């Protein structure tokens, strides 16, 4: 990864991470109603793992941003639902519903949205300050 130099790197990469998080939430919500033939093949909610990425140089200590280490799936078990008429139901008439908690995803979506906005706000404010600094003495 390239070096973190200015506020655009800080906020930009954090926004990228938040966007990945938003994408996983979208996938989770899209698959929320899905059913599968077995517990193994049932959909499990995906979650990104955030890590802090620090600036390399000593001069820039305290400067850091967020990056995504990887994406894991939750260990919540898919729900076993009795649906004997379903075409993919197993021999005892059960299907396995995707392990997605809708409320949890919605709340996380709101939180992600807020944090994305905060980063945008930081960039907007500091960009205005930079413009004013450039025009100093005029």
């Amino acid at each position, binding site marked *: 990864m390239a070096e973190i130099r*200015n*506020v655009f790197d*800080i*906020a930009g*990469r*954090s926004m990228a991470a*938040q966007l990945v*998080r938003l994408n996983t939430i979208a996938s989770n919500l899209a698959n929320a109603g899905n059913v599968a033939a077995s517990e193994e093949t049932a959909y499990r909610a995906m979650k990104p793992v*955030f*890590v*802090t990425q620090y600036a390399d140089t*000593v*001069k*820039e*200590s*305290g*400067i*850091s*941003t*967020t990056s995504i280490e990887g994406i894991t799936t939750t260990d919540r078990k898919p729900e076993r639902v009795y649906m004997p008429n379903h075409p993919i139901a197993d021999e005892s008439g059960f299907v396995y519903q995707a392990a997605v908690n809708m409320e949890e995803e919605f709340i996380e979506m709101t*939180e*992600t949205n*807020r*944090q994305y906005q*905060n*980063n945008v706000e*930081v960039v907007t*404010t*500091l960009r205005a*300050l930079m413009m*004013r*600094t450039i025009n*100093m*003495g005029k």
Partner: protein
Amino acid sequence: MKGISEYLDLHSTALSLRSKRNKVLASNIANAATPHFKARDIDFDAEMQKAQREGPLRTTSNKHFPVLAKSNGKEMLYRQPLTASRDGNTVEMNVEQMEFSENVMRYQTSLTFLNNRITGLLSAIRGE
């Protein structure tokens, strides 16, 4: 030249410190959702005092160059959270937002002072 840079020194030091602090606060806001992240901050007053106390190096011969010794390594502190969160993250969004907006406001204040001094100098040079 030394006179002018000395004349602007206080506010330019404040401006660069404020700018550094802005970056640190932006980092805190960027890491609001990262587990185990510890929010950092600079003690502005202490750093400002440090920068002023050091000042220009004393020259004992007229062949010495005057060097402005600025404290480069800012002392980074950790913020004490008001209420600790379970995931070990000490970023409190409301606190960071308030600190950030205060810092931005003070940056603008320093900028205004600097601007006034520069326009003052310019009108003195032009003799208006």
